């Protein structure tokens, strides 16, 4: 086994056996996020379940009967007829019979609808707690009433203007949407295209930020642990090149960080899927509109992300060299890396070309923006900017790596001491 491999394996063992790392960075995302998603889904299911609506009908006309019929036809609704003739009695019954909403149709309701003078009904939401399902129940009834309004409008229009399609009066203008994507016209509105690309433009920056922060924290922890546990001095006097030590530590850290990042991505995706259960799969794909990333594009995106991870690793190693303990290293790395990663989040909301020129150049100067820029540029087949980004990241990483290697070859790796939030320990004679 080569000396580099020995360090790499030691690094992985040391990190993967650390309960803090295993629990915090692997178990928690794989358990906590899906659990949160499951809880949300359970909450939403209770909201979606059948709702009992009480109707106190004081009207004798046919429109109130029509309203009750539409309510009865609604699959998520169970009707309850209060026995009491008084409002107080009906509310009390609602409370004891798990009726979430009580509708009171006043006398003369049908006549008001008939005369188009504006009919009113009273809605009493029965709230037992402050859970989401309680609050949403009344808004569900609002939506049902909205639907009833539309249906009643159609009935009134049909009665008053018999030979006309009520839809044309309710909505006299309809829009047929087309989008021109890279010179190709597709007959879908821009909102649909935006929906298709949103997952891509959202996932790459989020995943990248998670990965970069993990890699950075892990590299800082790995280096600072050597200092805190007083193992670094021994390691540096072993018959192995300092470059092999640096490479071994970076390699081991990268593997463990990637495992953590994958755990977070799986956990996060499971969590996010809890919010998508109501969505209908679109028949349209990015390929249909010419926005799909080609296999070569994916390779370039992979290279770009890999280079960004390498840049974060080297930068964190250099920063951690200056610290004495794990806490200081993690703080220093967060303070330094976060401002370099966070601005790339802007690409979730805005295209680079729509940004002011100065901001555009600032973002281009930040190394961690480039994989995010690459994700949208590759969809538009703009390979030049992606290649430029990869070259820039390569140069940035090389410079940081050279600094890291230089630091490892000097006494600074032993003597540099930045302490954040703790007292400095005295140097010995």
């Amino acid at each position, binding site marked *: *086994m080569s*000396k580099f491999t*020995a360090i790499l394996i*030691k690094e992985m*063992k*040391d*990190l993967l*056996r*650390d309960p803090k790392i295993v629990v915090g960075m692997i178990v928690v995302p794989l358990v906590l996020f899906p659990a949160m998603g499951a809880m949300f889904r359970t909450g939403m299911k209770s909201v979606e379940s059948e709702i009992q609506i009480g109707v106190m009908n004081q009207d004798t006309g046919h429109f109130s009967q029509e309203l009750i019929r539409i309510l009865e036809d609604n699959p998520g609704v169970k009707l309850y007829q209060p026995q009491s003739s008084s409002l107080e009695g009906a509310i009390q019954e609602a409370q004891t019979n798990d009726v979430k909403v009580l509708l009171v149709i006043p006398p003369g309701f049908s006549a008001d609808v008939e005369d188009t003078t504006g009919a009113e009904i009273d809605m009493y939401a029965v709230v037992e707690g402050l859970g989401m399902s309680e609050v949403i129940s009344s808004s569900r009834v609002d939506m049902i009433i909205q639907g009833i309004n539309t249906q009643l409008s159609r009935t009134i229009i049909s009665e008053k203007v018999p030979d006309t399609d009520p839809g044309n009066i309710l909505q006299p203008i309809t829009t047929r949407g087309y989008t021109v994507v890279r010179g190709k016209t597709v007959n879908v509105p821009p909102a649909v295209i935006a929906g298709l690309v949103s997952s891509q433009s959202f996932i790459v920056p989020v995943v990248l930020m998670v990965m970069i922060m993990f890699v950075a924290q892990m590299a800082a922890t790995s280096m600072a642990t050597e200092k805190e*546990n*007083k*193992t670094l*001095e*021994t390691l*540096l*006097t*072993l*018959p*192995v*090149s300092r470059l092999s030590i640096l490479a071994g530590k970076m390699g081991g850290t990268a593997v463990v960080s990637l495992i953590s990042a994958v755990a977070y991505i799986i956990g996060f995706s499971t969590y996010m899927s809890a919010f998508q259960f109501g969505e209908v799969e679109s028949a349209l794909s990015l390929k249909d509109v010419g926005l799909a990333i080609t296999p070569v594009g994916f390779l370039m995106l992979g290279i770009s992300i890999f280079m960004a991870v390498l840049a974060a690793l080297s930068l964190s190693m250099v920063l951690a060299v200056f610290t004495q303990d794990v806490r200081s290293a993690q703080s220093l790395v967060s303070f330094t890396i976060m401002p370099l990663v966070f601005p790339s989040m802007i690409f979730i909301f805005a295209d680079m070309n729509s940004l002011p020129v100065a901001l555009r150049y600032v973002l281009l100067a930040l190394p961690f923006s480039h994989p995010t820029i690459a994700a949208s540029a590759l969809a538009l087949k703009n390979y030049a900017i992606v290649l430029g980004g990869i070259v820039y990241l390569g140069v940035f990483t090389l410079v940081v790596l050279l600094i890291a290697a230089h630091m490892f070859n*000097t*006494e600074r790796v*032993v*003597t540099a001491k930045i302490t954040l939030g703790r007292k400095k320990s005295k*140097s*010995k*004679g």
Partner: protein
Amino acid sequence: MTAIEVVDLVKNYANIEALRGISFMVNKGEIFGLIGPNGAGKTTTLRIVATLLEISSGIVRVFGNDVKKDPERVREKISYLPEEAGAYKNLSGIEYLNFMAQFYTNGRDIEEMVATGTSISGLEDRINDKVSTYSKGMTRKLLVARSLMMNPPLAILDEPTSGLDVINSQEVRGLIKDHARKGCTVLLSSHNMLEIEFLSSRVALIGEGRILDSGTPGELKNRYSAQNLEEVFLEAVSHE
């Protein structure tokens, strides 16, 4: 043959002069002790010989290899035990020795070296337990075992018995003497002057970054008409 050659060694940290031109030589197979109070420059000297710190001026050679020009060759000849050393807490004792052995040998020799280390450590079955479960003394014995198991040409030991009880300290001193008898050169520092007197063939007294005097323990005691090295040191300091 000269194992260590230190000539006019100066080490400055920012505005502090840690070493002010010290010189000494250590012969092969010798146990050479550095004694002095806290902040005298003992650890700095050891860390320079171990290639951890850079020299401000002067010359340091280990078996003829310049620590400044050829640190990697020097590292092939040495084994360094820092005073405040630790071992990887998430590895077992045997995994730690195995990891270290891979830098000095390969193949079946690794197993032999680890077996030697296990025997030196005296940890018996506990060698298979995680280092995080060890007491301070057990960790120190593991580290001493690590520094001696490869039979290094030069062992640099900073306070080798630090944190050990009387019995274990005695055992470690015996191990150091045994290794010197096999031809291993030892450069050690200690606050414990009786320990240095027991172990060292020659001694240098360091105070405020300078060598105050050097010689065999016998020579020094005669020179200062002292009963032991503690008295020698106090006398040497008072002459300054």
